[in-house]
């Protein structure tokens, strides 16, 4: 698909023939330089923006407007400050006309799922930033979406909290089986969470590479210290650095893994970790 905006009368291409598919139940991350159009891409996928050309579909069914099959989590929690946590979570159901008993039931269940069972009665201003983002994730799951889209959801959190949230997201994914598409600018986060990492070029965005991640699941935080993880991260970083030359990318990735080799890893080179 392609997408551009008209700014000051000039057409500014943002997405240039971006194409990818996400197998059901996978976690796919999209990384790209700042301003590469990651968020635009996510909004097109969510049906909030219509592409100038091309299309988005889930299981062959076109998405051309906001769609209940898609749950969207923004960079900020975007909670309604005048509603308690429980009413924020069940807000999508209220809009969809679900009766209050079912709303309450589903809301409590979702809050439990994100570890906030005891906070249903709290107003957003009484919650921490991390708790608010959990409420936002619970809200995105309210209508049982088949795809969960996350737009840099943890970028406002400190490093340790962020790691914890990554683990919790994996747990959530295992419990719900939802397909997850995550936009992030953190390479470790992308590699740790994903089955595949899609690397975008600077604007106008093209898909530079799709890096498969073969870390075994379920993953624990110790995976962050393994060689497979480091090689995958190095490959993503090399693609992101914008070198179009495959040999250079290999060399860059090799240089990164050499440091690991010194720590006793085997000397063979396998940037995508296929042989692990």
């Amino acid at each position, binding site marked *: 698909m392609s997408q551009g905006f008209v700014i000051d009368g000039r057409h500014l291409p943002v997405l240039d023939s971006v194409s990818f598919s996400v197998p059901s139940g996978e976690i796919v991350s999209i990384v790209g330089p700042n301003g590469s159009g990651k968020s635009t891409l996510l909004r097109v996928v969510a049906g909030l923006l219509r592409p100038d050309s091309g299309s988005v579909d889930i299981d062959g069914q076109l998405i051309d407007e906001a769609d209940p099959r898609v749950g969207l989590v923004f960079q900020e929690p975007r909670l*309604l400050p005048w509603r308690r946590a429980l009413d924020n979570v069940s807000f999508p159901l209220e809009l969809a006309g679900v009766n209050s008993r079912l709303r309450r039931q589903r809301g409590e269940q979702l809050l439990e799922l994100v570890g906030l069972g005891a906070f249903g009665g709290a107003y957003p201003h009484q919650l921490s930033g991390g708790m608010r983002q959990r409420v936002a994730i619970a809200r995105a799951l309210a209508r049982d979406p088949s795809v969960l889209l996350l737009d840099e959801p943890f970028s406002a959190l400190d490093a340790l909290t962020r790691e914890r949230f990554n683990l919790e997201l994996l747990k959530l994914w295992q419990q719900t089986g939802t397909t997850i598409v995550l936009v992030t600018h953190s390479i470790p986060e992308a590699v740790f969470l994903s089955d595949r990492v899609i690397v975008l070029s600077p604007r106008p965005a093209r898909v530079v590479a799709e890096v498969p991640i073969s870390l075994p699941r379920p993953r624990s935080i110790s995976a962050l210290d393994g060689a497979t993880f480091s090689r995958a991260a190095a490959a993503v970083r090399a693609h992101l650095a914008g070198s179009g030359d495959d040999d250079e990318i290999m060399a860059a990735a090799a240089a990164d893994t050499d440091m690991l080799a010194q720590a006793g890893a085997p000397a063979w080179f396998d940037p995508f970790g296929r042989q692990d």
Partner: protein
Amino acid sequence: MTGRIRQALPVLAVAAVFFGAWKLVVVVGDYPPFILPAPEVVGQRLLRAVVDGTLAPHAAATLSEVILGFVVGATGALLVGYLLARSALAERLLSPYLVAAQATPILALAPLIALWLGTGLLSKVVICALIVFFPVAVATMVGIRSADGRLLELGRSLRASRWQVFRHLELPQALPAILGGMRVGVTLAVIGAIVAEWVGAERGLGHRITLARGSLFDIPLMFATLVTIALIGLALYVTVVLVERRLIGPWR
């Protein structure tokens, strides 16, 4: 309890200073009661008027005019304010007339309105509504416009209807501004009612003032009536503040 007393203390002190200064002016200037009655004279007259029932029916008349006019004016202002906020065309076409109407003194318009609509309840309600309209409409417009675009995008992603967007996203966000406009509006409504009653009325506190100053020549009664008007304005203002606290207090 002691906390409450401590909070009330400065309020009482300021009131004491106000009445003390008033009394001082009367004593030092040696004014007769028909020029400037002392506070206790006004207080006694007010008490007598309340007891013998001269004020109550007039206060009730004025209060109902104010409340009706406020409800009518504020409702219209909410609708128009929303329209102005969401339609650039409506704003371009309507706002010159709104501003011009606001700039025309209500004092000048009131006789005309009384001429067209008579001196009954209707003309009072219309004058009150007119004077309430502008501040509430502007506050609504500003409030709706200040709605966070990110929350509106959330609404779009959840396929909220236009009504749902208004009810669940725009109105709650605009509420603090709207209630601010209503605070101003409700006190203006009191002025509107008094002006309307001056132009022509059979009852009401404005009518009472004209009477006390003119044929009765009872200046303490006139002051007592003024105090009643001020108390009504204060009570209405406090009511709006309480509504505000109830609606937006918990989440702010």
